[in-house]
């Protein structure tokens, strides 16, 4: 199988600039199907920009991006996306179910009500993130962490082959973070996961590769991540935390 067939995401010689300022420089990247990638890097380094380029919400200045061998716009139906602590109106009159159902848009009828099948799929997605019992609650009444999980459910409701998550662990406490990684690990058995991380708390047993984004983009297998690489990304000594399974972790200072 050629690289093109087996890649979920393939980026070649891609440059992106915003208002004349180069945000991403000469990106070459191949993420195989079934991979679990954590995207790390400093604030403003271009992590979210990279996700938006993969989604086709932004266009590269030069180079090409292919998702499942297609242009990003064409691949959208196969991508589930969870935006970064979404700047959405918390007072919006909708139930948890209403919000998750938005993931079914574009699947069924062009107008009218959602089908029973849509509701079943969404029910399952809510169940997976542990929100099924809250499905009739209003969006305004649930907590920040619950909203986070709701947006993951909405992304799952798209029945994606590729899941793009922008800082899914923001607003989550340690226990919920552990649960989330477990969920993503399960999902990774059938789909490709790309996740932007707000810190270096990547789970070595779950994440297979780490993409470092700081104008340039480099990919490393998780096992090869060293203190040097981290210093290189962030430009200052950082504390590296490695979680090994259920809470038994060791901390290294570099």
């Amino acid at each position, binding site marked *: 199988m050629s690289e093109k067939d087996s890649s979920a995401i393939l980026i070649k010689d891609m440059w992106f600039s915003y208002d004349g300022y180069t945000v991403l420089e000469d990106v070459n990247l191949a993420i195989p199907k079934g991979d679990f990638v954590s995207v790390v890097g400093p604030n403003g380094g271009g992590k979210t920009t990279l996700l938006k380029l993969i989604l086709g*919400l932004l266009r590269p200045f030069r180079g090409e991006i292919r998702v499942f061998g297609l242009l990003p716009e064409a691949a959208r139906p196969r*991508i589930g996306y969870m935006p970064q602590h979404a700047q959405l109106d918390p007072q919006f*009159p909708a139930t948890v179910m209403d919000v998750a159902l*938005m993931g079914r848009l*574009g699947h069924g009828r062009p107008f*009218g009500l959602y089908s029973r099948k849509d509701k079943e799929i969404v029910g399952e997605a809510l169940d997976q993130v542990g929100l099924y019992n809250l499905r009739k609650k209003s969006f305004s009444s649930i907590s920040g962490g619950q909203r986070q999980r709701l947006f993951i459910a909405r992304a799952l409701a798209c029945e994606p082959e590729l899941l793009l998550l922008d800082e899914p662990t923001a607003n989550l406490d340690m226990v919920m973070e552990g649960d989330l990684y477990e969920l993503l690990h399960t999902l990774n058995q059938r789909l490709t996961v790309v996740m932007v991380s707000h810190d270096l708390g990547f789970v070595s047993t779950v994440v297979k590769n780490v993409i470092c984004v700081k104008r340039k983009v480099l990919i490393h297998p998780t096992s090869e991540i060293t203190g040097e690489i981290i210093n290189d990304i962030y430009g200052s000594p950082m504390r590296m935390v490695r979680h090994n399974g259920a809470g038994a972790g060791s901390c290294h200072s570099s």
Partner: protein
Amino acid sequence: MSQFLTDLQHYSFLQHALLTGILASVACGIIGTYIVVRRISYIADGIAHTVLGGMGAALYIHRVYHWHGVVPIHGALIAAVIAAIVIGLVSLWAKQREDTVISAFWAVGMAVGILFIARTPGYSEDLMGYLFGNILMVSSDELWMLAGLDVIIVAVGLLFYNQFMAVCFDQEFARLRGVNVELFYLLLLCLAALTVVVLATVVGIIMVIALLTLPVGIAALFSTTMWRMMAISTILCVIFTTSGLVLSYGPDYPAGATTIIIAGAAYLGTTTVKWVLNRGQS
């Protein structure tokens, strides 16, 4: 009150007025909800004021050129839809400040209307009717036209409920799900334009915004879903327009202004009660 009920059986203008209020309320509840949750009431108000330009131009053509097929509501419709599309396009694509463009439409629309009406021979009372409503003057032709507009607004507004909700809630996500975000936004503004024209008959273009937002504002206190917000605000709007008509009839108050006072008092009352109750809880 009893005087109103007796007269209602005898005078068709009162029956028309009552029906106009009810028709307007349905459009108002549905589109008002979208406008409030998407927070674009300023755009709706801009469109409302632009309508005067169209009304004035149509009236001028009607009186000066004796084109009797052209009546002010035609001009109102054209002006409203043009304003909706231009403001929509600007807010979607242009780098202009959106509120500046809305203000420009708002003021220029009114200025055009006032000039036309000033140059139109005949009674200048028309201007007052357009500005503050003339629900007691609705002819049966106009009533049919309002009913037709109502059907369009309600059908489109409900048929694409899911899309409109997604576009109002999270535009970026809707786009990723293949919803044509720009098209639905413009469609929503056009529906708002039609609603404004229907409501302008009831309360006049200056006070349209109150009827679009106040019932929804009250309904929001009791709704966790959008369709419920639509249902409650429609019912409230029927209550406000009908009671405004009934209460103003005896003492011969302006019906539009009476309706708005009732709606405003209800909004103030419910939000205050809600606030006091919430304070008691915490």
